[in-house]
Structures are given as C-alpha cells and as structure tokens.
C-alpha cells in the first residue's frame, strides 16, 4: 500500500485548470519531490492532499484514507508545513507548540512534554516571541509544529524558499532524519538541487500536469545522456568551434560567448571526445578545458518545461 496515492486529480476554477489530472504514487518511507515552476499546480496538489481543498475530479488517498470522504482520518495522519511560516508570532516557540499540541488533543501535560522534546530537538530553546526568531529558526519551529503527532506522512510546501544556505542544509538534515525513521515525505520545490538532494522520486509538474516522473538519475538520463563541455581560448573562434562540436554531437550546441563555452549532448562519450579534440586541433583552435559530464537537473527541467522556469 502506498502512503500517498492520486489518480487523475483535477482542480478547476471556472474553465481554468490548476491541476489537469495528475497521478502520484508515493511509497512508505520515501521522499517524493514535486518539482515545477511557480503556478505549476504544486501547492494546489498539496492543498488537496491535506484536505484543505476539495478536488474537482479524480481521487486521492493519504495514509490509506480518502481525502474527500475521510478528511478527519487523513488529518490524524499528516503534518503540513505550508509555504508561509504558519506560527503565532506573538507567542514563544514553546507556547506555539503547546497550543498546537492541545489542539491535537494531547492534553495539557502531554502537550508540554512534546513541546519540550521538539524544542530541544530543533534547537529552539529561545525565550522570546517567535517574531524575534531568525528566518531559519522560524522555519524549524514551523516544521516542529507539523511533527507534534509524529505523523506518518509529512507535506512540505517549498520548505526552504527564502532561507540562507546554512538554514537550508539544516532543514535538509531534519528531513533526512525523519525519512530514516520511516516518515513519508512529499515535498514541493522550485529548487532542482533540493529535489536532487532529498527526493527518491521526482514528479516534474508543469501547467497542472506531470510532464516527467522518475528517480533523479532517470530524469537526467532522459535528456540524452552525457554532455560535452569545451572552453575555447580565442573568443573570436567560439562560433567556429561550436560548428565543429555540433558535427559530432547528438543535439544542438549551447554557446556562451562571454565564457567562451560550448556545450552539447553526445551519445558516444569517448568517440565524441576524441573526434572533437582532433577536429579542433586540425582547425588550429586551442581548447582551454574539455569535460564530459552528466546533465544537471536544471537542464532536464528546462528541457521538460519548455524553459518556463527562467
């Protein structure tokens, strides 16, 4: 049985489809990344799966319960960390966690104990009100509030947007710890690096549809394997070099005249490398650097979404 399951999930506003039939299948204890540009439908999907929004069509199950017909049972099994830091800024961290603990019906004493545990675990033993917290601390408090019941399924909607690299790394560490304890995580992100770092499987969403699905490696492989990068010494001969590279490459070359950089997908790694080097030296073009590499998720993403993200 899957932790999160969606079939043909749709959400329409008038004749505009925010979600145009998406399928998801997230296994227990794994991380699923929903990757897509702003307005792709990631948040709409999370809002439906966390019972905040009723779908216009299709069906979804979370922790084995139907989101439309068993919302109370779904809510018992999920934690939601939304895009905004949804804590009471006038309360201290402890007061926030106690409040949410009571609303989870833990009772006063148990809510206090759980608040203490979470404060210690997330390094939040700050005495002041949450509005005095740094952005990273507030985000950790937000995350802690979503973990009060230790939910089997956790939804993170752009958990690190707007955070500095150190705070981002801290959130990543927390997510990895949770997953190693068996929590299922569904996270949305615009950051390809984040999906690459955390997700076992990624669904790339664009305009309300899943345009690609797979492990990070599978998605990278979809772009036609390896890429050949060449840096040319003489700025005047970059265009000429691009022509040479394209004769060997399996697709069009990308050229950056400022950095004198030519990059193109190649199907046969070593043959392409030797042929390009031979052709360049025959033409008398000096290469400063030559490298074979796997494509980044950025390139996969731009390819799949038609360049909509930049």
């Amino acid at each position, binding site marked *: 049985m899957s932790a999160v399951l969606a079939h043909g999930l749709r959400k329409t*506003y008038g004749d505009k489809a925010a979600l145009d039939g998406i399928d998801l299948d997230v296994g227990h204890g794994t991380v699923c990344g929903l990757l897509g540009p702003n307005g792709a439908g990631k948040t709409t999907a999370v*809002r439906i799966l*966390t*019972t*905040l*929004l*009723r779908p216009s069509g299709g069906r979804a199950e979370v922790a084995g319960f139907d989101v439309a017909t068993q919302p*109370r049972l779904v*809510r*018992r099994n*999920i934690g*939601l960390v*939304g*895009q*905004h*830091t*949804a*804590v*009471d*800024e*006038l*309360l*201290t961290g402890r*007061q926030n966690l106690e*409040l*949410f603990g*009571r*609303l*989870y*019906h833990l009772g006063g004493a148990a809510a206090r104990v759980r608040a203490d545990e979470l404060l210690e675990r997330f390094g939040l033993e700050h005495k002041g*009100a949450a509005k005095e917290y740094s952005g990273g601390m507030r985000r950790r408090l937000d995350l802690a*509030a979503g973990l009060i019941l230790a939910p089997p399924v956790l939804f993170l909607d752009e958990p690190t947007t707007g955070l500095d690299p150190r705070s981002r790394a801290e959130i990543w560490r927390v997510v990895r710890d949770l997953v190693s304890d068996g929590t299922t995580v569904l996270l949305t992100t615009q950051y390809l690096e984040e999906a690459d770092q955390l997700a076992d499987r990624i669904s790339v969403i664009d305009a309300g549809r899943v345009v690609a699905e797979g492990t990070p490696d599978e998605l990278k492989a979809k772009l036609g394997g390896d890429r050949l990068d060449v840096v040319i010494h003489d700025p005047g001969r970059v265009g000429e070099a691009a022509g040479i590279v394209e004769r060997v490459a399996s697709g069009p070359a990308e050229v950056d005249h400022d950095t004198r950089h030519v990059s193109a997908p190649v199907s046969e790694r070593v043959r392409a490398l030797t042929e390009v080097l031979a052709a360049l030296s025959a033409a008398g073009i000096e290469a400063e650097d030559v490298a074979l590499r796997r494509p980044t998720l950025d390139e996969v993403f731009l390819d799949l979404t038609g360049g909509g993200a930049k």
Partner: protein
Amino acid sequence: MSTISTKERRLWWALADGWTVARRDLIHWANQPMTVVFGVLFPVMITLAFGYLFGGAVKVPEGADYFAFLMPGMYGMTMLFGLSATMVAVATDASKGVTDRFRSMPMAPSGVLIGRAIADLLHSVLVLAGLLVCGLAVGWRPATLPGALGAVGLLLLLRFSLLWAGMYLGLLTRDPGAVVAIQTLEFPIGFLSNAFVAPDTMPGWLGTISEWNPLSATVAAARELFGNPGWGGVSWVAQHSVLMAVLWPLAITVVFFVLSVRLYQRLDR
C-alpha cells in the same frame, strides 16, 4: 453504563478547542500587556476628548450633563469598533497560513471561530469595564443595578453580533491591510447614530437613517435601561429601542454566522 454519543463528543471538542484557541489570545495579553492597556485607554481618551471639547456646545435633552448623554453612546461606539479588531485577527491568521494549519489538523473546525468569539468578547468586556469606570469618574451614573446589567448585556450582544461580521470580512479579504476600509466605515456608521447627538437635530432623511442604525437601537436601549437622558424620538423604532436592540444583533448574528461558517469551510480558493 452510559455511552457518550458522537454528537455530544463533537460538541465537547468544539468547546474545548474553542477555549484552547481563545487561550492563545489570553497569552498574547500576558506577553504584551501594553497592547491591552492601550486598547482600554483609547476609548477612554476619545470619551474625555468628546465630553470636554464638545460637551459645552451640545444641547442635551432634559437639560442634563453631556456626559450623562454621551457615555451610553461611547459604550455603543466601543462595541462597534470591535468589528475591525476581530477582522484584523481573522485576516492575519488567514494570510499567514495559521488558518490552513488549523484546518489541516484533526481539531474541531468550529473551534477556530468559537475561540475567536470567546477571546474577542472577553476583550470587549475588559474595554467596556474600563470605560464604565471612566464614566463613573466623570459623573455618569446608572439609575438601577438591574437596569445597568441589562444595558451591559445589550451592549455585549451588539458586540457579539459584530464578531461574526468581523470574522466574515476577515475571511473574505484575508488581508489585514484591508481593515483600513472597515475602519473608514466605522466612523460614519458611528456618527450616523444617536451616539453623540439626537437624530432629530439632523436633516430629516439623515435622521431617519440614523434612527434605524443598529447602533442607535442599542445606545437608545442602553440609555433607557441605565436611566440616562435619551433624545425622546417619536418614531416607532425610537419607541421600541429595547426590542430593536435585541432584534438587530440577532439578525446580524444569524446572517454573518451562516456566511462565516460557510466561508470557513470553503476556504478553497
């Protein structure tokens, strides 16, 4: 052995969760006592300004002291101002995702609105108590204790009805900044009433609107029950102010309670 029905359990949790949500406001007060102090002092300051600045210029029915006429008007006005306070609180939670967090939790959905109602009503009791003390200090006197309790009850009933209007507006706008528009409306609604002057001193049509203003009904009823000088209007609505001071808030409550609950359940925009 008795078993508790699901319905009773739900009601119990709705009230328990409502109290937990209301407690959150009480903790705000404890964390930031100055906010509460200023909340109490603001209407006191307005009252003193009105009473001493305009008191000499306004002719009061029965030749009474202006404060005797003004105080019930200020009590009513303070209840009206609660509208924007409720709206800001609700809109802030909605805009920051706190409302979404509540809705994604297995708590009673009605607990959020019940909690808001409890907290804001308690706040209004505090503010009204401060203003009553101020009234006593400047020479205003209620005639009888039962009458005074009845008047306070009607004032809080008006506040209770405006709670739901505030919740509706907060959920509708989801933007605490939109409160400026509501505050801009509160003043004309407040002045277009019998709170400060008698409607029969206004141009005819304006006087009629003013007489039918729900605030006028509550203020006129409060004056009657407090035993303070009224303005003695002859129209039906002026003659039945206590009845109208019950009917108006009940009507407002019913309409906005239904609208707020519906909007809360369908925050799925």
